[in-house]
């Protein structure tokens, strides 16, 4: 029996439309059995390779050294000797290009949201996200009245493991990492390119224009700090930002 591992479904439908769909036994290459044979091929031939690939990835998940607020204190205590997470292979990386795990430790606000998404997009595949703490799951204690807190980081990123707690104890974070490892252990090498990073999210052409840097580094050297506008006989209205509307 020839095992068909090709993903080209179109080739096989030519044969299946000629036969009745409830008579699969006589169809050599039907669409249904393609999936079965793919799973079979993965479990018979590629088991060891899959397991080895998954084991290599799960035992060295490198998290990005990222934290916004209180949850980061718990995450940082994992770096120490008491709750060591190096024994699970987790080495904190400062650069997103070298990290493959993003533990969103801390509240995400409207101001921080583009930065988190940019960090996530800069991480190379395969990458995982643990949503840590109540704030990143549903907004937490800020979900009732806040005018700026995101109600959950899954509005921005695809999350693999949700870790409740406010903040979760370091042992709970380790528990979440172990759950993630179990999830990684079940992955298939053949499905690796199924979700490519490109065209993963719906994008629209924006009409934004380029503006100057907001913080060019010269805050204390601004001209307006040298002398008050009153002394220079300038009109006081110059101090009011031009885009402010006085209702």
């Amino acid at each position, binding site marked *: 029996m020839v095992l068909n591992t090709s993903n080209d479904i179109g080739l096989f439908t030519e044969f299946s439309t000629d036969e009745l769909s409830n008579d699969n036994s006589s169809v050599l290459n039907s669409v249904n059995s393609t999936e079965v044979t793919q799973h079979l091929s993965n479990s018979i031939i590629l088991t060891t390779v899959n397991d080895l690939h998954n084991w290599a990835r799960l035992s060295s998940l490198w998290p990005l050294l990222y934290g916004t607020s209180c949850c980061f204190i718990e995450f940082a205590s994992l770096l120490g000797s008491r709750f060591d997470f190096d024994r699970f292979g987790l080495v904190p990386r400062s650069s997103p290009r070298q990290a493959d795990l993003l533990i969103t430790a801390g509240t995400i606000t409207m101001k921080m949201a583009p930065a988190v998404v940019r960090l996530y997009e800069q991480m190379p595949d395969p990458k995982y996200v643990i949503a840590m703490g109540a704030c990143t799951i549903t907004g937490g204690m800020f979900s009732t009245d806040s005018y700026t807190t995101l*109600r959950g980081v899954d509005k921005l990123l695809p999350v693999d493991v949700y870790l409740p707690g406010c903040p979760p104890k370091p042992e709970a974070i380790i528990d979440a990492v172990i759950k993630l490892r179990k999830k990684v252990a079940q992955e298939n090498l053949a499905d690796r390119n199924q979700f490519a990073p490109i065209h993963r999210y719906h994008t629209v052409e924006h009409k934004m224009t380029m503006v100057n840097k907001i913080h060019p580094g010269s805050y204390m050297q601004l001209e307006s700090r040298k002398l008050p506008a009153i002394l220079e006989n300038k009109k006081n209205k110059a101090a009011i930002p031009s885009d402010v509307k006085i209702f």
Partner: protein
Amino acid sequence: MTPSSIIYQDKINYQGRISNWLKKNSLPNEFLGFDHQGVEILKIQPQDLLSTSLALHSYGFNYLRCQSAYDDSPGGQLVSVYHLVRLSDNADEPEELCMKVFVSRVKPIVPSVYWIWKTADFQERESYDMYGIIYEGHPCLKRILMPEDWVGWPLRKDYITPNFYELQSAY
């Protein structure tokens, strides 16, 4: 004379010490009473703020402990609050003062005290960001907590949160 001893001295038509001193020097103000810790509260008009602040600074109030703001009532006035302390070496109970400047909601313009107490730099930016109180003379009045292009003044009592997808309930 500690503030607590003043309270028990004279209860009829009593104005605070600093309020009297300012009035003697022809700096108009209104005495609003003492708060629960015995700190004098003065109500100052926006046009008198700079001259009063200069006088207080030369008197000895060299520390602006906190500059904050609050919304008096929906449709009412916005208030800019200044907590001053007279710091000195080996002080036992340094003198404290609270100044409040009431401005209307439609034209909330207050002179900036940055040129007297530098700490007002960030604190006035925060009051501007949250309430829309414009501080004239501030060297760089722009939003400090909200994103730069945010529209609206979040802590005003008549503020309605925009219905962005990210702010909608997770359920």
